[in-house]
């Protein structure tokens, strides 16, 4: 039970810095869950990320999977609520005043200032997934290929690439 509470507090704190959504939190979730608390190992973390990628629904659900592996059903519920609830409440209270913030100099400054940080977070998340999966040549070749394809054909649905990745993995190429 104490683990569930700890999970709730850790993820609740993280939800306030999740600029760029749950994806931007991958490196920090890895730090908290794998490095600090040793709740999961590198391999399981990578697997959970893969499952969340393949599953339908918003990508915040990787948090649900981590919660499940750490603390069962209540872990899953606690981590999901911790991630969604604080900002939901805040946004509920703020939305009516949004008109008066919108276009102010400080609001523009935060929007502009946060973008380069979000890019750094997502890049870090990608590197950490790559490193903790311990990919060899096949893995990094796949990553490069997917990067090239996703930049060249932007309208391609990622599910096609994910399915291809699953097949390539099964074939022992990655």
């Amino acid at each position: 039970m104490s683990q569930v509470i700890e999970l709730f507090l850790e993820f609740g704190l993280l939800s306030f810095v999740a600029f760029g959504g749950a994806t931007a939190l991958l490196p920090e979730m890895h730090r908290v869950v794998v490095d600090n608390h040793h709740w999961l190992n590198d391999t399981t973390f990578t697997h959970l990320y893969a499952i969340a990628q393949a599953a339908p629904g918003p990508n915040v659900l990787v948090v649900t999977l981590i919660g499940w592996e750490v603390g069962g059903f209540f872990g899953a519920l606690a981590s999901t609520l911790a991630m969604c609830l604080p900002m939901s409440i805040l946004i509920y209270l703020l939305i009516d005043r949004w008109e008066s913030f919108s276009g102010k100099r400080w609001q523009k400054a935060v929007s502009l200032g946060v973008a380069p940080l979000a890019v750094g977070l997502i890049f870090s998340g990608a590197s950490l997934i790559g490193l903790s999966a311990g990919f060899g040549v096949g893995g990094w070749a796949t990553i490069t290929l997917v990067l090239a394809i996703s930049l060249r054909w932007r309208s391609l649905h990622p599910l096609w690439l994910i399915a291809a990745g699953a097949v390539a993995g099964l074939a022992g190429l990655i």
Partner: protein
Amino acid sequence: MLVDERQWMTADEFNAQLGLCQFLPGPNVVNLAVVVGKRYQGVAGAIVSGVGLLAGPFVIVLLLAMLYDHYGSLAAVQSMLRGIAAVGCGLLFGMAWRMGAAIKDKPAFLPFTILTIAGIAWLRWPMPLVMLGGLALSGGVAYWKLGRQ
């Protein structure tokens, strides 16, 4: 769906509110659901739309987690997940690339991207600290630049 099918809001309203949801931290879609829900039904609407958005995927993901607990140790499942993780990783690099390319003033702001990567991926500093420090610096530069225009 909200704009085209039901006409619950105009495209402009949708974009303005999506802008707010992307500006604030947290899962964008959940934030947006709360905003739209509140607009129509107050507290009840906000709760229903937030829960409604997440409940189905939540159940699916738990079923997948149970399957993983049973079959995750099989070699075939592990190599399949490895393949998916590699693709996911490539997609993340692609997302970072596109977001980076969309930054207008690159010489002023890309250094903060590099500092974030150094702090998070290399030095493994706690993210709340990196974000607060980074936002103070990067937001400060943006504030100063906005004042000069």
